[in-house]
């Protein structure tokens, strides 16, 4: 059952081959059996899941069902879920049962999707390896000595291990695409503003965007459609109708122009990963696409600009975690200052503290212009590179990550090297563009991700290109040993 795509699951549900309750039990069972090796799920909501599954079964009989009705999914623990712990991977929120649902949570609920539980993640989504979680590192199902990527590492590992057919993720600098690449699954970060951020605990507000992780582009298309749409509670949400992504999947790729940024194939890229990506591009040529080299000259500036903008925003966003109205409060604070300092000192982990400190510094008097303003100016240069490129090409392609999954602990003490693992994904967030990663090869038994970058609101085109690729390749159907 766990090997089915959600399209197959939806058909089975409607044909009465199995019920949502059975499907749900099967997922819960797999989590029970396999997750001890992965640590991908931090809160299991079995009882609520079964109740939701039963309700979905009833709804399926009425004919008022959506493509996601009765389909189980795992929810990144960054989304508020009413009455269910919403920890964001942090000790700070370990005791926080959100008193309301995020818009994404509510939309998936309305669609009839069945939430199985909440997935592990880097603390407050700050990390590229899922090692910064208060709940311990997540392991990559392809090699449990390796990281799954981050910050949506729990979601990616769980879907790769087929513990659930779908999971939600969020992506601030690559947090959907990089773990999708490292775990051999499909993930898409839509255009900034496409999915509501309400109830999604903010890391860097101008960069954060939610999206799905799935085993195929087709599944991702259904999930994204359900998650997307205008939300009056989010000022940055875009009031523009959501395309039917599933409808346009089959579009022919002849005439599609693909741009390969030369900066994405240069120094720093693992040669074997590069070769796998080139091979994937070759498939696109066969599908009738035209491929040309392009340049995104400011690529190298993306990571440094990001490490000013994201920490600056996060330093302010995380100020509300102060031990007063919710979350962790230190024992016996002796005064107000002590309450703040210790609650935050004890509640946050090292990486979060590093970023708060960097961000505080970048915004502080005397440094604002040199860091924050400068980074925002560079951000525009990076965006303009893309705008220029999309005058000539429809989709930009390249590697998602310069390497395959690295070993646990390998980069934990070296923040800058860790940050550089997001070198190809970060620019997309700075520009607010949609980006996607799909499995495109294997190197030494580890998956390689191909990144697809589209113009604003071109999610449909990306999913279409990904789907056509998946029709002629089988990388996305491969499963890690022991999790088949």
């Amino acid at each position, binding site marked *: 059952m766990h090997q089915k795509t959600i399209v197959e699951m939806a058909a089975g549900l409607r044909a009465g081959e199995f019920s949502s309750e059975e499907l749900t039990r099967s997922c819960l069972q797999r989590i029970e059996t396999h997750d001890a090796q992965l640590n991908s799920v931090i809160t299991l909501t079995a009882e609520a899941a079964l109740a939701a599954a039963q309700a979905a079964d009833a709804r399926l009989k009425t004919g008022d069902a959506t493509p996601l009705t009765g389909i189980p999914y795992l929810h990144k623990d960054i*989304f*508020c879920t009413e009455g269910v712990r*919403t920890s*964001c991977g942090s000790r700070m*929120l370990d005791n*926080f049962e*959100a*008193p*309301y649902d*995020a818009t994404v949570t509510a939309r998936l609920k309305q669609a009839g999707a069945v939430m199985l539980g909440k997935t592990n993640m880097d603390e407050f989504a700050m990390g590229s390896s899922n090692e910064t979680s208060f709940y311990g590192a997540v392991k990559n199902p392809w090699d449990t000595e390796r990281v799954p990527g981050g910050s949506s590492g729990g979601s990616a590992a769980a879907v790769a291990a087929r513990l659930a057919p779908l999971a939600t993720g969020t992506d601030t600098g690559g947090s959907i695409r990089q773990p999708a690449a490292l775990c051999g699954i499909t993930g898409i970060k839509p255009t900034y503003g496409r999915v509501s*951020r*309400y*109830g*999604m*605990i*903010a890391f*860097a*507000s*101008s960069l954060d965007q939610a999206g799905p992780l799935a085993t195929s582009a087709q599944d991702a298309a259904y999930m994204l459609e359900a998650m997307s749409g205008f939300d*009056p*509670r*989010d*000022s*940055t949400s875009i009031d523009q109708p959501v395309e039917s992504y599933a409808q346009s999947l089959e579009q022919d790729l002849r005439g599609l122009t693909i741009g390969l940024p030369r900066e994405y194939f240069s120094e720093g890229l693992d040669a074997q990963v590069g070769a796998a990506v080139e091979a994937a591009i070759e498939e696109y040529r066969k599908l009738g696409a035209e491929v040309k080299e392009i340049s995104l000259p400011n690529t190298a500036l993306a990571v440094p600009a990001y490490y000013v903008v994201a920490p*600056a*925003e996060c*330093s*302010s966003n*995380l*100020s*509300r*975690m*102060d031990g*007063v*109205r*919710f*979350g962790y409060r230190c024992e016996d604070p002796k005064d*107000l200052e002590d309450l*703040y300092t210790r609650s935050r000192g004890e509640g946050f982990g090292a990486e979060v503290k590093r970023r708060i400190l960097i961000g*505080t510094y970048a*915004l*502080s*008097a005397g440094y*604002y212009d040199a860091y*924050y303003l400068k980074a925002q100016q560079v951000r525009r240069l990076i965006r303009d590179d893309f705008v220029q490129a999309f005058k000539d090409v429809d989709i930009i392609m390249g590697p998602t990550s310069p390497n395959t999954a690295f070993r646990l602990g390998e980069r934990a003490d070296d923040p800058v090297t860790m940050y550089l693992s997001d070198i190809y994904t970060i620019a997309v967030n700075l520009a607010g563009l949609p980006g996607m990663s799909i499995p495109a090869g294997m190197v030494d038994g580890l998956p390689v991700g191909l990144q697809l970058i589209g113009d604003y609101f071109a999610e449909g085109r990306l999913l279409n290109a990904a789907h056509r690729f998946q029709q002629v390749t089988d990388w996305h159907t491969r499963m890690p040993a022991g999790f088949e």
Partner: protein
Amino acid sequence: MEWEVVIGLEIHAQLATRSKIFSGASTAYGAEPNTQACAVDLGLPGVLPVLNAGVVGMAAKFGLATHSTVAPRSVFARKNYFYPDLPKGYQISQFELPIVHDGYLDIDLEDGSTRRIGITRAHLEEDAGKSLHEDFQGMTGIDLNRAGTPLLEIVSEPDLRSAKQAVAYMKKIHALVRYLDICDGNMQEGSFRCDANVSIRPKGQEEFGTRAEIKNINSFRFVERAINYEIERQIDVIEGGGTVVQETRLYDADKDETRSMRSKEEANDYRYFPDPDLLPVVIEPEFIEAVRKTLPELPDRKCERFTQDYGLSHADAGALTSSRELADFFEQTVKAAGGEGKLSANWVMGELSALLNKAGKDISESPVSPEQLGGMLLRISDGTISGKIAKQVFEAMCNGEGDADSIIEKQGLKQITDSGAIEKIIREVLDANPKQVEQYKGGQEKLLGFFVGQVMKATQGKANPGEVNKILKQMLV
């Protein structure tokens, strides 16, 4: 040495919206603690702000009324600091690009001249909550009902030169925001409060002295006292050989002094940056024109019209237009009084105002309606009653005994103007006082007053005093 005082005010006017600036929670005053603090106001993880349309229109109104620029594009920024009444650890405010800037307001000075006070900017921001220091086992309680209430912070240029000018300016802004219906002006509830930046410099010096900021003054009286105290303090410091420190001070009304707020003294670094959860506020010219059409007649214009239409002095017209309610009351009175502007002004600012003052009431709580008052004034001007009797009628009206006509009728207060009737009464008075008549005729003319008094007494004040005088003189020849 002669010192010149330099003052700038930052006035916080709470905008009279139904809901908060960034959330749909109610702004009603006086609710149970934290019952009007929604998820957004509490700064729960994941929540986002959405701007209230009402505040944009109100800020634009203020901008137009103060000859300011209403910015076509303004930006919300975060002001970062930790305080328990500030749930998010930052206040959403405007920093580099405020919604209103570069305007002015003219104030009247005591010598009859006017002074133009520059308005640097007026920006939108959210209010913080309240700390309650009652004893909860040595803890402080936080009520966040007020958190997220919309404020317009109005920043003046350092153009004020005395505490009196500061008060005049503050009163003028107070009247203006109420005319515009954008703030209820209730100072007790904190809807209108101000911070004063005060410095002194030797007369003739261009350079500003070091200023102290006096925080959170919530009455006109306190503004004057706090500033005057602060001026004296600074003069003492400098003349004593010291230097004024730039700091925040708090005015203690009980002790009538300002004192340094040491807890907030540590150098604040607010780390302002554009709030990424909000987008630039774009105001189109059409919107501004639509707002312009909703502007009421403003105090200065109204004052000018009162002097022209009713022949009032500038001072009287100014006093009557100091609040929209008072001006409206006055105009309705004039209307009911058949256009008697001066008489109406005298009564509104005289008897009525004295009565209200004594009872500590506002014009909106007047025991007589403008129609009642005007109706009575009509009876003065048509000679039905004298000014003296009118006071009696007014008192009766205030006691709820009905309108002027019925009181006059019921109590028989109608003035006697028939000269035959008056003659008859005078005759009786003269007959009863032959000795005084003789003395009068002997040259003691000041006895005329005695006879008038007697006649008025005999008529219970209802005789027309002019007539009485005239006839008396004729009969005493």
